[in-house]
């Protein structure tokens, strides 16, 4: 009899094992009562962890025949055996470990082939460029030495000039082009490619002229040939000048102001850049990111995520009227539409209910934050005192004293190890409260302490790197997890920056959103003030005429 079951239901305080057609239901005791009243004809099996009475075999679902809905029969025990999926932290340390493993894999594969390809091309072009003037000078001696005029003094002077100009060109090319590459950019650098093509065309045209007019006719005027070689080297130097202007000087003048925002916590910085292509601007921004932005700490974001989860978890939507069966009966074609409509109405219902209920979560947030602030300040005070006290225990020995020191003499590492235990506990508690404990390992702290002792730094200087979270560069290599960045942009990445262009720099944990604004044209006018025009008078009592 259902009545009996209701009695056993009353004594249960945990979830009921009712299977409900909409999914696992872990309704409250009250909810179970309501459904019972509605479906008195059914005898239900009620089970919980505590009660062991089984009245009827758990064969049928709650609402009539399952065949009507075309749904697989749900076991009433289904609720017990499923494990609840609570809000796991997606940003736990395990993900960082995974990323670290994949990063090692990526490093080995990389874009090495492309880099070597461009490197070999550059070397070939360089060799061609350098050997061409020498070839121009040497070939006549090799091919028609007897017909050639002897080289006079002017001609020999030109040899010196060719030699020195080639040396300067060599040094200049080495300075500009043969620097260790900073990054592997997605597309080819347009200006460099254009310059390479220009140089190639230039050299080829010189060779053509040489081949046709000098080699074929076997010109005897050696001085003319030497002058031709000198003109080639001069022109190459001018092309190098063009390269400097295009590649280096053009983007020095600031033209755009870029705003970079980190997507996880909103940290924003502004940078001024010149006229660059989007990929080069992205590279400049990443380099600034490592210096300016405080390190990304996923532990600090968990609070807002748990709040969001609580907002959603407080409400559950149960569809009591039989809308769903009708959708099912019409077949799979209409299913998605009906399901979508159902989902939409469900979410609207949730939003309405959330708006209506009295939400006191802002109160909780306020008090929680105040409490946290107070705790952090207390721990910080303890830490500062502990560190200051620890630093008083060691003293630096002067040169003369080193010979006649009383106790053992320690080097910085040993000194750090000696005073570390007295401050370790306070430091650890502080790091735990500010959720920085995974950024600093014991080893790194001791190393930093030894470094501070060696350089005569005060306790305050030692603590500075723990009290405020510094830029990513400050931490160990583990935190440079994201050396693989993805540039997401609607415009082509080799196109230049424009006013209002937006692009994203994605890495594993977060992304940087970059917006561009043009620096406005500044209209400045002058106003001349004669230095003699600065005159003053004492202001006596104000006298007003009536």
């Amino acid at each position, binding site marked *: 009899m259902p009545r009996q079951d209701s009695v056993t239901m009353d004594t249960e305080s945990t979830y009921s094992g009712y299977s409900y057609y909409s999914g696992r239901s872990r309704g409250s005791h009250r909810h179970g009562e309501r459904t019972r009243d509605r479906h008195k004809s059914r005898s239900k099996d009620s089970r919980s962890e505590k009660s062991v009475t089984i009245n009827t075999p758990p064969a049928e679902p709650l609402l009539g025949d399952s065949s009507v809905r075309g749904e697989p029969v749900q076991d009433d025990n289904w609720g017990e055996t499923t494990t609840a999926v609570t809000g796991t932290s997606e940003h736990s340390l395990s993900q960082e470990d995974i990323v670290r493993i994949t990063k090692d894999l990526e490093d080995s594969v990389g874009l090495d082939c492309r880099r070597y390809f461009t490197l070999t091309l550059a070397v070939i072009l360089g060799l061609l460029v350098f050997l061409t003037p020498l070839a121009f000078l040497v070939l006549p001696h090799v091919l028609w030495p007897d017909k050639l005029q002897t080289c006079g003094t002017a001609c020999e002077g030109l040899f010196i000039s060719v030699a020195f100009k080639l040396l300067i060109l060599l040094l200049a090319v080495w300075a500009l082009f043969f620097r260790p590459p900073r990054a592997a950019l997605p597309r080819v650098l347009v200006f460099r490619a254009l310059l390479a093509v220009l140089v190639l065309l230039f050299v080829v045209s010189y060779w053509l002229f040489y081949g046709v007019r000098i080699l074929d006719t076997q010109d005897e005027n050696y001085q003319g040939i030497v002058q031709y070689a000198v003109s080639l080297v001069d022109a190459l130097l001018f092309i190098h000048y063009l390269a400097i202007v295009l590649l280096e000087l053009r983007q020095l003048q600031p033209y755009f102001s870029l705003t970079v925002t980190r997507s996880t916590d909103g940290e924003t910085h502004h940078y001024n850049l010149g006229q660059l292509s989007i990929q080069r601007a992205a590279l400049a921004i990443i380099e600034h990111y490592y210096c300016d932005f405080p390190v990304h700490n996923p532990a600090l974001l968990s609070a807002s995520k748990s709040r969001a989860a609580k907002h959603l978890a407080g409400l559950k939507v149960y569809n009591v009227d039989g809308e769903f069966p009708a959708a099912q009966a019409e077949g799979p074609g209409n299913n998605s539409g009906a399901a979508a409509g159902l989902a939409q109405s469900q979410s609207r219902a949730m939003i309405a209910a959330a708006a209506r209920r009295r939400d006191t979560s802002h109160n909780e947030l306020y008090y929680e934050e105040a409490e946290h602030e107070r705790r952090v300040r207390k721990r910080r005070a303890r830490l500062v005192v502990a560190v200051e006290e620890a630093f008083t225990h060691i003293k630096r020995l002067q040169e003369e004293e080193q010979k006649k020191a009383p106790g053992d003499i320690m080097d910085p590492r040993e000194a750090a190890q000696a005073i570390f235990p007295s401050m370790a506990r306070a430091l650890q508690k502080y790091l735990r409260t500010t959720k920085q404990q995974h950024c600093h390992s014991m080893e790194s702290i001791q190393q930093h302490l030894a470094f501070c002792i060696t350089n005569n730094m005060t306790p305050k200087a030692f603590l500075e790197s723990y009290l405020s979270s510094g830029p990513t560069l400050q931490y160990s290599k583990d935190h440079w997890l994201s050396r693989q960045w993805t540039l997401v942009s609607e415009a082509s990445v080799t196109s230049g920056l424009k006013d209002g262009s937006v692009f994203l720099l994605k890495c594993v944990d977060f992304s940087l959103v970059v917006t561009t604004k043009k620096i406005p044209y500044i209209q400045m006018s002058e106003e001349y003030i004669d230095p003699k025009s600065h005159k003053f008078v004492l202001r006596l*009592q104000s*006298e007003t*005429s*009536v």
Partner: protein
Amino acid sequence: MTCYIPGQPVTAVVQKIEIQKLRQGDRLILGFSIGGGIDQDPSQNPYSEDKSDKGIYVTRIAPGGPADVAGLRVGDKIMQVNGWDMTMIKHYQALKKLTKPNEDVVRLLVTRKSLEQAVRGAMGLQ
């Protein structure tokens, strides 16, 4: 002038002066300038005996103007204007009390050192 004891009422020998305002264009003028006030620097006052006296003093008289005709003199301390007290007042407020647009006549109570001396002399004679 009488000495000023803080907290005690001020006693002085005063003279009633009635000035008829003169209309000049759209303004009514009285023909003198005032200085002083509790928001001004009393040490700059050339006419006061006690350099901490923050009262309103007459600093200039336009010759032939209504004030001159009525008998106001330079260096007079104005004690009252139409019944409004002028001994503890801001400079701007004193101005407003003197230049009310709907009044044609201002009745001042002024004091000066010669008055005191005259009264003492008269009492001494008796």
